[in-house]
């Protein structure tokens, strides 16, 4: 790999590793609180998958950076402004409908993203993507079916699901943004051009939303900044809870 690409690759790995780490934590918050035992287990399983993916991506980020930070150092000893996840994944879990709609919007992006990333010129990254891609397909099937069941369910589930979709829509655009970091890696064949994935994403989301008798929100305000470390007020609170044990007992093992 071209040595000059190293900082961009670290940044890219943090962005996509952090997406999964933060989403995994939000999903894990459902553990013991799911609406049914099966769903409790399903959300915990999906949390395990994406946290496992975060583990692989952050470990690679640490090795690429070469400053001696491993995945645990990156997960537990960085502050809010150093996190590079999209704001979509940090929003509080809300009700089950909110969690499902967020998951669906993310999964519908994640499947084509990982599919494209399998073709990365970076061999290890391509391998991680190939593995995660298979998992993401299961996640999408699960979340899409739930969007339909909730949207086309009772009046209350329909209303809550539509509200979640309306609230979350403004946070989806950030997933498809491309900046100088991406452009350098796209040119080197290491990263896919996520902006090119947006039309197919929108078509797939529209198909499920229609089947769920929901209405696709219009594009208005576009939340952005997560990729540069600018977050909603929710991330810091989440990190405080996620990081406190590791920070209170550095080096502890159990």
């Amino acid at each position, binding site marked *: 790999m071209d040595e000059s690409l190293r900082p961009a690759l670290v940044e890219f790995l943090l962005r996509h590793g952090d997406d999964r780490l933060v989403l995994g934590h939000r999903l894990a918050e459902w553990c013991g609180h799911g609406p049914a035992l099966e769903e409790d287990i399903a959300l915990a399983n999906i949390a395990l998958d994406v946290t496992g993916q975060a583990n692989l991506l952050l470990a690679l980020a640490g090795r690429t950076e070469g400053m001696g930070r491993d995945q645990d150092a990156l997960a537990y000893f960085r502050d809010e402004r150093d996190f590079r996840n999209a704001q979509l994944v940090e929003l509080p879990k809300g009700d089950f409908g909110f969690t499902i709609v967020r998951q669906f919007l993310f999964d519908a992006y994640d499947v084509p993203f990982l599919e494209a990333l399998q073709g990365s010129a970076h061999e290890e990254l391509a391998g991680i993507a190939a593995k995660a891609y*298979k998992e993401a397909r299961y996640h999408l099937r699960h979340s899409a079916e739930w969007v339909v069941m909730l949207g086309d369910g009772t009046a209350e589930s329909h209303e809550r699901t539509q509200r979640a979709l309306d609230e979350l829509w403004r946070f989806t655009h950030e997933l498809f943004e491309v900046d100088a970091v991406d452009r350098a890696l796209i040119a080197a064949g290491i990263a896919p051009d996520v902006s090119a994935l947006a039309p197919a994403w929108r078509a797939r989301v529209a198909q499920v939303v229609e089947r769920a008798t929901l209405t696709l929100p219009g594009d208005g305000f576009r939340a952005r900044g997560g990729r540069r470390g600018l977050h909603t007020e929710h991330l810091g609170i989440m990190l405080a809870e996620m990081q406190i044990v590791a920070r209170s007992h550095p080096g502890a093992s159990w």
Partner: protein
Amino acid sequence: MTTRARPTRDELFALLDTVMDPEVPVVSVVELGVVRDAAVEGDEVVVTVTPTYSGCPAMREIEAEIERALHAHGHERVRIRTVFAPAWTTDWIGPAAREKLRAYGIAPPGPAPSADDELVPLRRRREVVRCPYCDSPDTALRSEFGSTACKSIRFCNACRQPFEQFKAF
């Protein structure tokens, strides 16, 4: 260490075949396809493994069990190498191991989904999965996600028994 002949790949695989999966202790890590290769490199045995799922919590235990088994047979220096490509698939589980799963009460996986399969099916898929207890094909999917990432939960309408299936992956 006593002088001994360099073990062949087959001999190492036979040894690793005694290491059972911690979550499904009737199939070995070789039968599952988690062990991809084993060879002597210099003075150490290098075992190449691939995780089933990215977040499989059993991987660390599997690696420790592999080391323990090799140490017990006089291989003092063991290195585990993890690879992600090609990605693990349930298609690597052979017929004998599938029968062991069934006898243990876990329905074996069907063929792994292909990239062409509908991603958002919008309706329940019609896959015939036989109950591992009564062999009835009248079973229904309860959840894609079971007690471990690699299993789904089904219910047998014939013998009224919930059971797990190794998901096709």
